[in-house]
């Protein structure tokens, strides 16, 4: 079965860097005869084509500012494209950043439900997987404590745990495998491998080249918003290491 899970077609994204935040400044600028630039732009992505088949696991690689995270945000739908189109099939769960939907004043339990539903599960599904989620996170008896009292490690573990139990068709992962201590990281990796074997499509953004080589079969290298390579992961990693 070689159906596409994600089709990114000639996508460009230009960012407007606005230098003003208030109406007053804009008005002053208009009255001064529009001297100086109110905003400057830069191309985060420039005509990128990527097609990912169902069940593939692809790494997006590149140095800082190469447009990896922007591409991931476009795929998840958080941002919209300027030109070109992005299409996806099935349920996409973005792990753009774990814990975005967590509220410090709610208990762990409440946060699990809120985030489970935020990430696209129904309340029933969250209920059904609740024990699994808590067990995976190793939070144990702290689950009914408000999240603001959690250590940062505990917080991230719970957030990650909710995210990996959402069972999406397409799973987007942005630099989140640096979660918790070594044993927990191993567990996360194992969980991601499990997802991969169950036929889930993965798109991973990471600077951890060793980890990426283990998880992905294919690598796409971006440089200043342009795709410069697309092939087996080993080649992509080599290209990046050589600079």
């Amino acid at each position, binding site marked *: 079965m070689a159906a596409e899970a994600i089709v990114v077609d000639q996508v460009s994204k230009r960012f407007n860097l606005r230098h003003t935040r208030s109406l007053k400044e804009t008005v002053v600028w208009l009255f001064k005869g529009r001297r100086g630039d109110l905003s400057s732009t830069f191309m985060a992505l420039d005509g990128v084509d990527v097609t990912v088949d169902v069940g593939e696991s692809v790494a997006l690689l590149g140095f800082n500012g190469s447009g990896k995270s922007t591409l991931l945000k476009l795929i998840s739908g958080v941002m919209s494209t300027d030109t070109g189109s*992005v299409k996806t099939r099935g349920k996409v769960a973005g792990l*753009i950043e774990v814990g*975005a939907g967590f509220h410090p004043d709610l208990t762990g339990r409440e946060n699990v*439900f809120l985030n489970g539903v935020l990430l696209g599960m*129904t*309340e029933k599904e969250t209920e059904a997987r609740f024990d699994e989620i808590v067990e995976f996170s190793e939070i144990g008896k702290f689950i009914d404590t408000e999240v603001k009292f959690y250590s940062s490690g505990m917080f991230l573990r719970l957030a990650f745990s909710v995210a990996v139990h959402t069972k999406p068709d397409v799973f987007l992962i942005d630099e989140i495998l640096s979660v918790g201590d070594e044993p927990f990281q191993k567990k996360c990796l194992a969980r991601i491998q499990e997802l991969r074997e169950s036929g889930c499509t993965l798109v991973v953004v990471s600077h951890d080249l060793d980890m990426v080589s283990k998880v992905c079969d294919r690598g796409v290298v971006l440089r200043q918003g342009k795709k410069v390579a697309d092939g087996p992961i080993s080649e992509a990693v080599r290209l990046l290491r050589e600079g």
Partner: protein
Amino acid sequence: MSAELLAAPDKGGGLLDVLRRRELLRLIVRKELKVRYRSSVLGLLWSYVKPGVQFIVFYFALGVFLGLNKQPNFVIYMFSGIILVNFFSEAFSNATRSVVANGALVKKIFLPRELFPVASVWVAVVHFLPQFLILLTACFFFGWSPSIVQLIGAIGAFVIVALLSLGLGLLFAAANVMFRDSENIVDLMLMMATWLSPVLYAWYLVRDTLGETFYFFYQLNPMTIAVELFHFAFWAPTAAVRTAAEGARMPDNLISLWLPVGLLISVLILALGQTVFRRLEGRFAQEL
């Protein structure tokens, strides 16, 4: 699993998407209610203390000192207007702030962003209901016996305010992402809201003082219509007003003309808010 078709991830159905994610809406509302009065002793009671104090201040300043109390059942007259304006203020100002306040989510997880303004209005409804119960209780003490038409008017008024605050909320929430000035503009508008509707004075004073033309535009304000409808439903049918010499003076054609007009204007504002929101929504993630 791959039976589904390829589709754009950000296909937006606007407010319809919110209906599709009712569960999430409910959880967000529950969160907002829980978080609002966290670590406070009085908790939800604050929602009654604030309007209560406001009511007492107005009652003494206007009712007792300025002598408006001579009007029969001025208390009911004032309170029915105040709770409606409070509902509008809370819904509108929280909806305006909602998108920026939930910036972390808007930037990282894709969801229908209309969820946040809708949740704000919903939360305002939750805070409105107990105040409304207080009004009803008071009405019964004053010998309240409404007709069906009057009750329909009350429901219409509620719908007008809900639609209007959601529409304006969507509009200013989107604007607020671009320019934080919106919050202050909204505060200004809310400051005037109490006085632009006949909450503390009688509507005919506007007509008699400023003339028919001005009154026509005054009457086009959906909040004015809603407040008048609440007076018609809760104040007019109380015993003292019914037996008073001049009775309850209400604007002409309140139900037959102004109720539909108010609904129409609110729906138009909602449509405008939704359009602007959809137009700007694609830029939220990068502007926040």
